[in-house]
């Protein structure tokens, strides 16, 4: 199919080439002969018969010139370089093809092909103007020959080349299929070989490999999350079970049973809370929450969170500074961002102060122009030592100093996961004293359109 198409198009190309070269030669020589004829006949019109004869004789003397023969009615030669009128009838288009003997420089006679046009003149004369086409024929033959070879070579090359290319393509597609089968068979780390040619198949292979990498990353992330959840829920579940078992071991009063049950329920609630938090972190980490992304009024969101925690801070005797730049919009997940700020405020309130009096927490949200926005929550509590800063972002990490405060150790893990989900950057800094958590949300902040219009 492709071969046929290839042959048809190359034949068309060669045909055009032939028409342009050999055809051009023919057309040019025909035009020359016709022009000569007209020029000679014009001689007759201008003057007299002698001028024509003279012109024919003059022209005929040049050996490179065309062929001429001027005769009168009796067949007597008046001038020209042909010996006799060719006894061949003219073809339909008026051309006479004939052979004649040509004397070479050495005096020998060669038989050459020629082509001529006969013109009947007044006074019963007739004029033959022609051209030796031996050279042309030879050239044409050469061109035809060359083209025929070209066609032959093309067919051979086309078939062989096509076979090689398609064998190559098929082999590479086979590679892809084999790799896919291996991967389906469980060899998840297999990748499609890339030939390095940089062609479409390579691009396909690279894209498929990237896709496989991404899938593997997600899968191993999921596996790690399930492992962690299994590990982290086992011990509290065990505790719960033991409590119930111990309660059953000795007879107790109605009230004691009720109390044990209530404690178990609240422990189960805590477990569920932990479980939900873990799932939320996993979802944020896997990027599954991307569907929920929309333009969010970050300023209002932060304001609401501040308002939610203000009485809590007040109750704890803290000064709560809020500094929120108005009308900042950000493309993100409303729930998760709200929970992130809530978690940070919660942490700050738990850890602020320590030393008596003057304890302060601070929430600020500000634009960084083209760079995005920054959410900062700071407290003046004991802070986090530099060595621990990376560690506290992990799941269930609770520092020794905060063992006695309530909490699951998941708050900052969620903050970290949500920040990453939003393509942001989370930094824990020294607030001298205390902890300063800075979330830089990249690039996607904007001013509310109405505010831009108002400016």
């Amino acid at each position, binding site marked *: 199919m492709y071969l046929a198409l290839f042959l048809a198009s190359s034949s068309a190309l060669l045909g055009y080439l032939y028409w342009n070269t050999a055809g051009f030669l023919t057309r040019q020589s025909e035009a020359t002969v016709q022009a000569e004829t007209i020029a000679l006949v014009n001689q007759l019109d201008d003057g007299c018969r002698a001028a024509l004869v003279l012109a024919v004789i003059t022209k005929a003397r040049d050996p490179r010139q065309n062929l001429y023969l001027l005769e009168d009615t009796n067949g007597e030669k008046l001038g020209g370089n042909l010996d006799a009128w060719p006894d061949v009838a003219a073809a339909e288009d008026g051309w006479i093809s004939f052979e004649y003997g040509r004397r070479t420089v050495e005096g020998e006679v060669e038989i050459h092909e020629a082509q001529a046009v006969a013109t009947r003149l007044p006074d019963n004369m007739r004029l033959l103007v022609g051209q030796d086409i031996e050279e042309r024929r030879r050239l044409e033959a050469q061109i035809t020959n060359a083209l025929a070879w070209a066609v032959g070579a093309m067919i051979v090359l086309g078939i062989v080349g096509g076979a090689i290319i398609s064998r190559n393509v098929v082999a590479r597609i086979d590679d892809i299929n084999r790799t896919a089968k291996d991967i389906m068979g469980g060899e998840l780390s297999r990748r499609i070989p890339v030939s390095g040619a940089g062609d479409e198949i390579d691009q396909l292979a690279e894209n498929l490999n990237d896709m496989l990498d991404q899938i593997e990353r997600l899968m191993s992330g999921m596996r790690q999350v399930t492992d962690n959840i299994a590990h982290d829920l086992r011990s509290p579940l065990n505790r719960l079970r033991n409590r119930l078992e111990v309660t059953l071991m000795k007879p107790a009063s109605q009230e004691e049973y009720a109390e044990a049950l*209530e404690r178990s329920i609240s422990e189960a*609630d805590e477990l*569920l*809370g932990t479980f*939900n938090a873990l799932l*939320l972190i996993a*979802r944020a980490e896997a990027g599954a*929450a991307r*569907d*929920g992304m929309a333009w969010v009024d970050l300023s209002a969101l932060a304001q*609401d969170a501040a*308002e*939610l*925690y203000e*009485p*809590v801070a007040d*109750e704890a005797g803290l000064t709560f500074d809020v500094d929120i730049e108005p009308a900042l919009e950000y493309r993100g997940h*409303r*729930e998760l961002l*709200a*929970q992130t700020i*809530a*978690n940070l405020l*919660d942490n700050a*309130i*738990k850890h602020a102060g320590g030393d008596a009096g003057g304890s302060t927490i601070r929430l600020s949200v500000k634009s960084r122009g083209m760079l995005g926005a920054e959410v900062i929550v700071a407290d003046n509590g004991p802070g986090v030592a530099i060595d621990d800063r990376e560690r506290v972002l992990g799941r269930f990490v609770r520092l020794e100093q905060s063992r006695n405060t*309530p*909490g*699951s150790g998941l*708050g900052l893990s969620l903050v970290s996961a949500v920040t990453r989900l939003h393509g942001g950057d989370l930094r824990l800094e020294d607030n001298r004293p205390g902890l300063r958590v800075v979330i830089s949300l990249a690039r996607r902040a904007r001013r509310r359109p109405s505010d831009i219009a108002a400016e």
Partner: protein
Amino acid sequence: MQHQSIQAMGNDVRVLVVEDDVEAAAYIVKGLRESGHVVDHAADGDDGLNLAMSGQFDVLVIDRMLPKQDGLSVVSSLRDEGRTTPVLFLSALGDVEDRVSGLRAGGDDYLTKPFAFAELLARIEVLVRRASPGEAQQTKMQVGGLEMDLLSRKVMRDGQDIDLQPREFRLLEYLMKHAGQVVTRTMLLENVWEYHFDPQTNVIDVHVSRLRAKIDKNFETPLLHTVRGAGYTLRGPE
């Protein structure tokens, strides 16, 4: 003890529970019956829709994932037929997006599994009350000596002005709208703050105690009560 407010309602509430998980269904049905409700149960979407169509229920509790026909389509069909019986969705899918799709299909409330039974009871009660007739848009509400004017946004108790912050006003408004009913912390968080997550510290308690200080502190009879293991209730003297 924590179910007293529903039992105090006197007239029976008829509840249809559509839930395919046998154990979960048994637990919900038992709990609701013990709280004094009349309960029917369907185990799949088709049965649930047929029963619900009979129109003899005050509230429908429907699981989202059901055999034969999922909960969303059951509720959509009901609403297409013009049935306005309030629907409470139960679902293991707790994302905001899932919640939105449930409410869009015609659900009135959405409770994520696992849930506390007190939470389910409180929400059922709120839904039933909301659906009962004679509850036109009020501009004034009154509980005991406590009055709220929704137009002038003024609150008075026994003739004394009470000054509330905007959020405190919304909190009290919600409590007064559901006076006599138990409202849970989650319900307050969802309806007053529009948050669908669980803050680690009990921030709601702090807000409620602030509100309590303003409306109850200088008065003899308290109106805002804590219901242990469930939430809060605002009610006038018996």
